[in-house]
């Protein structure tokens, strides 16, 4: 029952508080995108978190790292600590399992999540998260932004929902050979990519909105998959045209029964 703090979100449903509190949510990457996501999830009432980031806050992060302070940058505070501070400051009794490492080095906790937010820099990293989520029947919500071109620069971004049994990021035309090849040709180096707080905010908010709908079903849309493209110059968030001819309810890349511990055939 929605009371007090959550009384203004009662439109999400009479049992929305319990539904939200029942979810184990993962956030991989606690930088510009992930810090927004964590803050919003805590505000809404999620209380069981699994979070990963092995980086520390620096001055150059403060233009976008939500919750970070100048003092944090001076002391090179781990981004993980900022996320934990945000969550515990909003959610009494929150369960936060935080890992100051790559998730691939300690993946077992992430498997317990029903929803995982990927706020990472590389296409390969996104692909790895999606594989893990498919294997353990979790929704994967990807968030990312970039700035490209000049005169004027173009702010772009995406929010992708890849769900068990539904179209994956390859099906939806987000993870393409062109993107993966280009990244491999750069040897995976992202470099100092332009990042600013307001597109991160738009994208994180959209991603969290998708997650809340998966939990509370308040729109009744029951999305099997989603790929939203952000145009920061026009201020639009539109469904990608690549979905026009995609069956969102199926995926040939992830067989539905391929779940659990990896299985191999001895030859």
């Amino acid at each position, binding site marked *: 029952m929605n009371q007090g703090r959550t009384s203004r979100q009662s439109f999400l449903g009479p049992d929305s508080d319990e*539904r939200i509190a*029942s*979810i184990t949510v993962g956030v991989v990457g606690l930088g510009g995108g992930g810090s927004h996501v964590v803050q919003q999830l805590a505000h809404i009432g999620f209380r069981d978190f699994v979070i990963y980031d092995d980086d520390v806050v620096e001055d150059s992060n403060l233009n976008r790292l939500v919750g970070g302070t100048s003092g944090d940058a001076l002391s090179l505070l781990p981004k993980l600590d900022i996320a934990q501070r945000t969550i515990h400051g909003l959610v009494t009794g929150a369960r936060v*399992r935080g890992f100051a490492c790559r998730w691939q080095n*300690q993946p*077992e*906790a992430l*498997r*317990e999540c*029903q*929803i995982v937010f990927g706020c990472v820099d590389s296409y390969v990293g996104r692909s790895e998260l999606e594989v893990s989520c498919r*294997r*353990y*029947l*979790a*929704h994967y919500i990807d968030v990312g932004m970039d700035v490209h071109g000049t005169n004027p620069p173009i702010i772009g971004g995406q929010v992708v929902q890849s*769900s*068990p*049994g539904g179209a994956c990021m390859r099906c939806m035309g987000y993870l393409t050979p062109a993107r993966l090849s280009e990244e491999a040709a750069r040897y995976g180096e992202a470099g100092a990519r332009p990042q600013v707080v307001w597109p991160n905010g738009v994208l994180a908010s959209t991603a969290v909105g998708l997650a809340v*709908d*998966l*939990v*509370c*079903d308040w729109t009744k*849309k*029951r*999305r*099997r998959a989603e790929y939203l493209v952000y145009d920061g110059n026009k201020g639009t968030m539109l469904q990608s045209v690549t979905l026009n001819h995609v069956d969102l309810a199926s995926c040939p890349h992830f067989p*539905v*029964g391929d*779940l*659990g*511990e990896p*299985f191999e*055939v001895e030859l």
Partner: protein
Amino acid sequence: MIEVRVSREMYEAMRADLARPHEFAAERVGFSMGRIGITASGCMILLTRYCSVPDEHYIDDPTVGARIGTDALTAVAHAIYHGRAKAEGVFHVHVHEHYGKTGMSRTDKAELPKLVPGFRSVGPQAPHGIIIWSLDHAAAWVWLPGSSEPVRADKTSIVGAPISVFREEWLS
């Protein structure tokens, strides 16, 4: 901690199958195949596929809600055998038509655990067990490989749109 996790799609197919009327059985049963996943808190049973019990495999026994015959159990044994390489086990599934917390009825306690040794003999490396759905909750018992005693699942999750999570500790 043990969690049982199923996709919304499979759950709804399972529920639709179990809701079908039968000529003489008061209720239906089914079998779900499942595999183990290792988690930080313990393990997860991920349901991989659902096997419906054909009408003709039921036995007319008015003393119980549903009774299945040896044909049904032979089919289950075949499914376990074919899933052995993948360590895919079987879970007996049925529905209790009420809301809220559920558990094994007297008949369930008397009959269902007796099935598991047979499952384990065909697929000793796989998990096996029992899942009971209420109209809005679930209870599950899991026999892990190497263990002759079941463990009650702490949580059951239906992942899809929407997500539903049923936790044992909320019931206390």
